[in-house]
């Protein structure tokens, strides 16, 4: 039987509403009543108990993270388990259209992170909400962090070139990279984090629906953080805890020197309260890694796999004094953590603040699992911090097992201060 979709539209409005209403409780009661008095021949027709995923508990959704503030959310607050990293290219053709897109983006992020009942657009419109989170959108710890790439500032249509943050450039290849143009660069990065994957995806879907004219997705990667196993810091696909040593950004003294743009930062005034945002898609060759002896893994990284403790120490919170091991007999000079952070006075202001996620995305042509790290860090000065770090890591022993294939340099704009503010408003003043 061919049913023309348009026939649904010509039925009476009342009937259409009735169908929508049956998604709620009445439908469940109806099914229950059937089961009570069924005949033997009805058992094939009857349904089993409502299936739900064993672990997922809707009441376990995370509390809301405040949207407004001097700084954007999604940076210093502890990373929740689910993330979508989505890079857009701006298709708006005028400055006004770009502003409109950013204002819409702000409104959607404000609603979604706060949660609430989606607006009812009436019987004729498609629903305002996809419904994937139920009838009431829970906040579930959602954060939407907006960061701009150099290409947005360089686009002559918007006249923002002289407002570009002073250290922001397109990300170019480091010697051990293998950057693929289709997943590198981009105008706007959205980092969408939440307690559950469906919350993050729901937000992405909503934002994309409202901004289709103004921006289009260039590439995206979903990420996750594993539970702590058994404790400490979540592990990456190498089986090692990742992100153990991170600067203490809850200390304002530290945050103002390592993280946020301040009035001392030699940056445009509009950028104060923002931070540089580095995002890199790093493929890990886990089949190769799984063929390497544990000793070699540990000396490449500089930590014990089981405990996360630095080599030469007993527990994850111990700090190994490199000055006592100048020849690297205990912690090799080429260990990843030693190269990345030499822990000297001279390098202390080059520390980066990491907030990475694992990814898992199909296979490559050789049948190997395409898994890796969504490397993600924030810093006050892209060159003094991230670039210095990454330069120290050139040629490290671990390069054989990883391959940075995409991502970019971005600038996370300052926070949205209040209900009349919107993302990067001061950039356009």
């Amino acid at each position, binding site marked *: 039987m061919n049913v023309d979709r348009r026939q649904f539209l010509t039925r009476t409005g009342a009937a259409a509403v009735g169908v929508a209403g049956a998604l709620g409780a009445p439908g469940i009661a109806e099914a229950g009543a059937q089961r009570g008095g069924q005949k033997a021949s009805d058992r094939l027709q009857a349904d089993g108990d409502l299936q739900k995923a064993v672990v997922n508990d809707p009441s376990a959704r995370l509390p809301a993270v405040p949207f407004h503030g001097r700084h954007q959310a999604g940076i210093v607050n502890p990373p929740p388990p689910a993330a979508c990293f989505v890079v857009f290219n701006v298709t708006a053709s005028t400055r006004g259209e770009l502003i409109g897109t950013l204002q819409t983006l702000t409104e959607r992020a404000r609603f979604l992170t706060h949660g609430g009942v989606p607006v009812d657009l009436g019987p004729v419109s498609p629903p305002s909400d996809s419904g994937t989170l139920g009838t009431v959108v829970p906040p579930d710890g959602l954060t939407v962090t907006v960061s701009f790439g150099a290409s947005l500032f360089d686009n002559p249509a918007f006249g923002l070139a002289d407002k570009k943050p002073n250290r922001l450039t397109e990300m170019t*290849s480091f010697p051990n990279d293998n950057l693929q143009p289709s997943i590198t660069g981009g105008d706007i990065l959205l980092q969408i984090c939440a307690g559950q994957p469906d919350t993050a995806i729901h937000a992405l879907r909503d934002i994309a629906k409202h901004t289709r004219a103004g921006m289009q997705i260039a590439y995206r990667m979903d990420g996750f953080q594993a539970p702590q196993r058994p404790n400490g810091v979540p592990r990456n696909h190498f089986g090692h805890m990742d992100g153990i040593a991170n600067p203490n950004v809850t200390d304002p003294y530290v945050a103002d020197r390592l993280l946020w743009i301040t009035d001392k930062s030699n940056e445009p005034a509009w950028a104060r309260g923002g931070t540089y945002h580095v995002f890199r898609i790093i493929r890990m060759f886990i*089949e*190769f890694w799984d*063929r390497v002896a544990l*000793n070699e893994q540990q000396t490449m990284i500089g930590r014990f796999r089981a*405990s996360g403790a630095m080599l*030469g120490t007993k527990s994850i919170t111990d700090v190994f004094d490199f000055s006592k091991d100048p020849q690297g*007999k205990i912690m090799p000079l080429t260990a990843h953590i030693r190269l990345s952070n030499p822990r000297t006075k001279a390098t202390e202001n080059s520390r980066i603040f990491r907030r990475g996620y694992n990814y898992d995305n199909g296979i490559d042509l050789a*049948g190997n699992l395409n898994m890796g790290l969504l490397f993600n860090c924030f810093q006050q000065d892209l060159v003094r911090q991230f670039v210095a770090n990454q330069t120290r890591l050139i040629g490290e022993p671990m390069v054989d097992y990883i391959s940075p294939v995409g991502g970019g340099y971005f600038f996370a704009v300052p926070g949205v201060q209040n209900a009349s503010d919107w993302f990067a408003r001061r950039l356009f003043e």
Partner: protein
Amino acid sequence: MRCLYASQVQIEHDLLPLLRRDYAQRAVCVAEVGGDNRAATRIETCAPLPAPSDGMLRTKATPLVGLAPDGVVSVTARFLAAPARTVRVHHNFYEIVARSLAAKPCGVEWLDASGNITRSIAGCDYQGAELGPFVNYHVDVGRDLVAVRADLRTLAGDIGSGNLAQAESDWLTAHLAWLDIGQDDGAYGVFGELGDEIDGTAAGLVGGTASPQFTGFHKVELDLWTDRSLAAAAADTATLQQLVKTLIAIPLGTELVGSGAGLANWVLRPHEILEDAMRDTLTGNDDYGSGTGLASLTADVSAVRQLLGLLAPVLNPLAPGLVARADGQLNAVIAAVDQTQVNGAWVAVSDLPPLARQRVDAAVGAALETLAPIPDLLTSTGNVAPLT
């Protein structure tokens, strides 16, 4: 004190004053007690503790025994062709059972209670005839490089004559000759940056294939197959010839020594060659138009076999059957590759029917699992993490 067999006790008693004068140095005696309760045997052997003391006695048998001062909680002994071993020290004394009688300790580290190294004694340098087959390795490599140089001359000639089809065939010959050497461009490749310039990909170069730093075999490949430019191929072949000439001029006897240090450098190659092939070739990442990745794989297999042949005498006592199993699996790789050719022509990895490609991946994957333990069976100079 000097320990004597029972029959010698009388002699010692008579010669005691003389012995006291002659045997003034310290010694360690090991008593082996065996047998059942009715016929217990007790054999005592003693060995002098050489001065200055390095804590490790040189004996011709296993176990090896040694002394360490107070405060030394464990000891790591390194061997030239066996895995390093870490054992606890009890009452200043330790013993290490070496799997192979041929494995002599060449270095010892004392570890304190925190696992910190308090003293590192001696080093693992070339010792003895075990490394005989490797001593002349650099000579073989030198000869192979001269063959590559000759192949490149042929390539340059046919490019100069304007013969694109023949040039493509020459390129393949030269490239496979290079890959046969097995030292190409991996991080463990002893040729280092020069190896990268000769056979690296454009990954990591700012500008990719347009970068002036993109040189070597794959640049010429791009010129011939993708850009179809004989002029560019001529210039890039000249550059490649210069790079190989530079490589030949390096004293390979220094770079590829048949010593413990040199051994540690390139015994990683048997598994590395194939890991590089899996990561770069079987993904199509290093195909710049020729579609000859599977030909490269056969050359890689040949290089692995050559290295396994050299290492077999050392590996066989340590891991019986490993080399034989690897050999069988490498045969399976070749068999899978043979099935991919169409009318005798190479098919690019990215053009293969999925099942044919998966059969090659399966064979290479299985071989890699077998080859993986080789570096740890052989490494003596790599770092060993202290006891946790």
